[in-house]
C-alpha cells in the first residue's frame, strides 16, 4: 500500500526530511482537515515519546559471555586463505552442537557428494536419476551394514528362537504302549490316561492310534458342550491317578495364547445393559412415607425466643412500605 500525498508529507515531517515547501504544503492540508490534523499531532506525539525513551542497559558480562562462547579453532576457509598461526574465531558452540547431531548417514551422503564433485561429474550427480542412483546405492550399503549387525533376516541357526517357545507346549507323543484300552488302571502315562478317559467317554471300543489323533482332527465345533454331556463322563471314568498335576503345566498357558483380539469390544454389547434392568418400580414412592416426618419431630419448645436476636433482622429486610402498612394497620 502506498501512502497518500498527505501521509507522505506527514512522514517526511516526522522524519525531519521535509523541505520548507513540503512543510508549507502540509500546513495547508492540516488547516483544512481536522481529522488529518489530529492524526498528525498524535503521530508527532508518539514519535517524540519514542525518541525520548532511553536505551536499556545490557546485562553486565554480556560481551564476556559472547566472547567465551565463541570457540576458537581453524576453519577450512581460514586455513586455505590465512596463515596457520594464531587463534581463530571461526566456530561456535551452537555450530559444534549441530555438527555432532549429524548422523553418520548424512556424513556418508556428504562424502559421496564431495567425491562426486571432486570427480568432476556434475552432469551425473546433478540429474535426478543420478541422485536417485546414489541415494539407492547408499541405502543399499546402509541396509547391508545393518543386516550384518542385527542379523536380519535371521539365518537358519537362529530360527530356533521362533520355535523353542512352541516346543515348550508340545507334550510328549504317545507311543503304542501308552494306549491300553480297557485297562484304566496300571502304569500309564498321563496322556494315555487322558486318551483313555476320552475314548471311554465316547463309548469307543476300538484301538486309538496315537498318531491318528492330531490337533486338527478335533475341531472346536466337535467339542461343543452339546456333544459331551456331563453325564457321559462319570466320576468313575476318570481315574484320579490318571490325572497328574503335571498334566497342566504352567508352560502350557503362554501369554501368547490369549490375544488381545480375543476380547473384542463387541463382546459387551450396549444391548446387554438394558434400561429395563433398573425399573422405576424399584424405587417406590411408598419407600418414603409421609409418616416418616412426624409433626411431633419439631417441637415448639425447640425454637426458643433467645435464638432470634434483634440484630439478626436487618432494617433493610423490612421495606418502608411494609412498615407503613404496619403503621396504617
Amino acid at each position: 500500500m502506498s501512502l497518500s500525498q498527505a501521509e507522505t508529507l506527514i512522514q517526511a515531517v516526522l522524519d525531519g526530511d521535509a523541505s520548507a515547501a513540503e512543510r508549507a504544503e502540509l500546513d495547508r492540508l492540516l488547516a483544512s482537515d481536522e481529522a488529518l490534523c489530529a492524526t498528525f499531532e498524535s503521530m508527532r506525539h508518539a514519535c517524540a515519546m519514542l525518541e525520548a525513551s532511553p536505551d536499556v542497559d545490557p546485562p553486565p558480562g554480556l560481551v564476556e559471555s559472547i566472547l567465551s562462547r565463541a570457540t576458537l579453532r581453524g576453519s577450512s576457509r581460514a586455513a586455505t586463505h590465512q596463515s596457520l598461526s594464531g587463534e581463530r574465531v571461526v566456530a561456535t558452540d551452537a555450530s559444534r552442537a549441530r555438527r555432532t547431531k549429524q548422523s553418520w548417514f548424512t556424513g556418508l551422503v556428504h562424502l559421496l557428494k564431495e567425491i562426486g564433485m571432486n570427480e568432476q561429474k556434475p552432469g551425473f550427480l546433478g540429474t535426478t536419476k543420478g541422485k536417485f542412483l546414489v541415494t539407492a546405492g547408499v541405502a543399499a550399503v546402509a541396509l547391508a551394514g545393518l543386516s550384518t549387525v542385527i542379523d536380519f533376516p535371521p539365518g537358519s541357526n537362529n530360527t530356533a528362537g521362533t520355535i523353542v517357545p512352541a516346543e515348550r507346549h508340545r507334550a510328549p507323543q504317545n507311543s503304542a504302549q501308552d494306549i491300553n484300552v480297557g485297562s484304566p488302571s496300571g502304569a500309564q502315562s498321563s496322556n494315555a490316561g487322558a486318551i483313555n478317559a476320552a475314548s471311554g467317554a465316547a463309548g469307543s471300543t476300538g484301538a486309538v492310534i496315537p498318531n491318528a489323533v492330531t490337533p486338527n482332527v478335533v475341531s472346536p465345533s466337535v467339542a461343543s458342550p452339546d456333544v459331551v454331556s456331563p453325564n457321559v463322563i462319570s466320576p468313575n471314568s476318570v481315574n484320579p491317578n490318571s490325572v497328574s498335576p503335571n498334566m497342566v503345566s504352567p508352560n502350557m498357558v503362554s501369554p501368547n495364547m490369549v490375544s488381545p483380539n480375543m476380547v473384542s469390544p463387541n463382546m459387551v454389547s450396549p444391548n446387554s445393559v438394558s434400561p429395563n434392568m433398573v425399573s422405576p418400580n424399584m424405587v417406590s414412592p411408598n419407600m418414603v412415607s409421609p409418616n416418616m416426618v412426624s409433626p411431633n419431630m419439631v417441637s415448639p419448645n425447640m425454637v426458643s425466643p433467645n435464638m432470634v436476636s434483634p440484630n439478626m433482622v436487618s432494617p433493610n429486610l423490612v421495606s418502608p412500605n411494609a412498615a407503613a402498612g404496619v403503621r396504617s394497620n
Partner: protein
Amino acid sequence: VETDDDQALVDGCRNGDRAAFATLVTRYQRPIYNAAYRVLGNADDASEVAQAVFLRNVERLDDYDSQYRLFSWIYRIAINEAIDLLRRNRREEPLDEGIELADIDGAGPEDRYRDRQLSDRIQRALMSMKVEDRVVLTLRHFSGLSYKDIAVVLHAEEKTVKSRLFEARQRMGELLADLRIR
C-alpha cells in the same frame, strides 16, 4: 554506529583475529540488545538473542555480502532470531489490547525513575502491537536505521517500510495519547 572500519573487522574475524571479533561485539552488543529487548519485551530473551546473533555472525561470516553495511546484516540476524524466539515461545500475538499501561504522571522527581517509567510504558505499548509494527518502530526509532536500511533488514521494499511505519506510528499515537511530554 560506526561503519568505516566494519569491513576491516569482518576481515579480521575471517582471519581468526579474536581482537577484531571482540571489537565487533563491543560495538554492536548494546544496539542489538536494545533492538531485541524492544521486540521481545523481556531482558532475558534479549540477552539470549544478543548472544545468538554474534555467534551466528561468526558462523556465517562467509555469507556476508560486503555490498551491504555490516550493521544491516547484523540487525537482520537479530530480528530473525527475535522472531524465531517469539515463535518458539508462541508469543507472536500482541498482548491484550486492553492492557493496563502504567501512568507516569505521578512519577517521582528522579529523572532516572521517570525515564524508567517512560521506557516501561512505551514497552508495554509496543508489546500490545503486532510484531511487524513493533519491529519497524524499533528499527526506526530505537536503532535509528534509515528506510533503506530497514528495507534491507526486513527484505522488503522501501515503500512497504514507509507504509508500515506510518500505520505503526498511528497506532502508537493512539496508545500513548494520554502520555504527556515533560
